[in-house]
């Protein structure tokens, strides 16, 4: 375990730099006078689950929103799948977004549509698929993966919190992304449903070979899903390591997480 601003990091890093899918350097973002991200650096590798751990309001969600161009950073480089995100045109950004799945904290399902229509929406608009049988097959395959094939014709309001999270994940998976970004995937869920969602995150990585960034403050979720953890404290990536490495930390801020 080591502070990430040093050049040496003791976690099991992939030796081949070619399998790096995300590289962030010196990222800064402020809202007015409030500095949210202050010189954040991180790398994400193929088929890796990277957990960003931190308290609420430390800029975790801002970080992944900068990665998909939802927010513009004040300074720094964000390289995702070879795209220099801050410099992309609208068309290039759309091209990148097809390769990056984003699961929102509140699921963000389109509440005027049924679950089926939610999943069909990106297929129709991005891939131009309008053939009913093809749409049905893709939608049902995606829903089967998250165990919700019987809920296709329900509206989001008729689903529980855990089911909404699953549909949100299915909706992003339907475009077969190379990277998944999960924003607080277990927030507001009971412990059993949280474990199910964590298992789903692992299944997604194993089945689709995706690299993932999981934003969370849930320590059990971090333990279950992470290959590597970055602790984001006061807008800085303070510590980096595996779950077991970070557990032994003397850092007072992070110690609170593990001892809670």
């Amino acid at each position, binding site marked *: 375990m080591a502070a990430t601003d040093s050049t040496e990091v003791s976690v099991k890093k992939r030796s081949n730099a070619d399998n790096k899918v995300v590289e962030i350097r010196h990222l800064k973002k402020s809202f007015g006078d409030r500095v949210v991200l202050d010189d954040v650096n991180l790398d994400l590798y193929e088929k890796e689950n990277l957990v960003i751990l931190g308290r609420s309001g430390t800029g975790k969600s801002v970080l992944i929103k900068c990665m998909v161009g*939802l927010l513009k950073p004040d300074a720094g480089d964000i390289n995702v799948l070879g795209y220099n995100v801050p410099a992309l045109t609208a068309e290039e950004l759309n091209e990148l977004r097809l390769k*990056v799945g*984003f699961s929102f904290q*509140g699921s*963000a399902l*389109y509440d005027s549509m049924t679950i089926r229509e939610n999943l069909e929406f*990106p297929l129709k608009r991005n891939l131009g698929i309008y053939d009913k049988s093809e749409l049905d097959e893709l939608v049902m395959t995606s829903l089967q993966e998250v165990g919700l094939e019987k809920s296709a014709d329900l509206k989001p309001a008729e689903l529980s919190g855990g089911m909404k999270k699953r549909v949100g994940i299915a*909706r992003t998976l339907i*475009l077969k992304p190379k990277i998944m970004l999960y924003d607080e995937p277990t927030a507001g869920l009971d412990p059993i449903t949280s474990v199910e969602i964590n298992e789903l995150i692992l299944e997604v990585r194993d089945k689709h070979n995706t690299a993932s960034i999981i934003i969370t403050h849930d320590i059990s979720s971090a333990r279950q899903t992470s290959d590597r953890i970055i602790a984001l404290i006061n807008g800085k990536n303070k510590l980096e390591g595996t779950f077991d490495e970070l557990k032994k930390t003397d850092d007072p801020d992070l110690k609170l997480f593990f001892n809670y």
Partner: protein
Amino acid sequence: MTIKDSLVSVAEVYTFVIKFLKEALFPPYEGKEIVNQCYSIGFKSVFLITFTSFLAGIVFTKQSQPSLSTFGAESWLPSLVSQAVVRSLGPLITALICAGKVGSNIGAELGSMQVTEQIDAMEVSGTRPFSYLVVTRVMATTLMLPILVIYADVVALLGSYVMVHSFNSSSFLLFFNEVSSSITYLDIFSSLIKSAVFGFSIGIIGSYAGYHADKGTTGVGKAANTAVVASMISIFVIDLITLQVLNLIR
């Protein structure tokens, strides 16, 4: 709100309009969704427009009749009412009703989508939400307002005829002849252009308010409120400007 905030808002609305024009004029076009929005914005407003326009026709005729009869000019009633309805009353009533019903609906709907990150979800899945949500709604209000205004004019004149008939039992044909002889093509054309501008402003203001809603449930309420108030103010300003322009033409 400070002067700086107001100037920032004006600049943002300007940018919003430019973005609308860019996305509306160049493909891909959202034909199917525009038709859906036209149905939802236009057809679903018909009952309210019928009710209010019919009553407006009756009330305006009833209030005008005593003044005209004082000067022995009661026969001018169809002519007066038709000019008032086509030039001003029809477009104004329809636009105000739509600002309240459609504007608030657009503001609240898009505001709610913004607050619950649904617009962000569309954005990150590369589905061009601005085109799907904003362009379609603004196109629908711009297209539907003139149609609703024609309908409102007809219904208001029917209401007026009911009143005129109750005063002097005049025939529908006579009433219709008087109406058609007193309305010019310029009246109709300018009324339709004005209505389209009303529709555009209702759509763009409602969409802007919703698209830029603050987080939280109060943000949705504020977006709906802003959509209605700002649309209504813009309607009166546009009405005043078109009146000045038409006076110059006439």
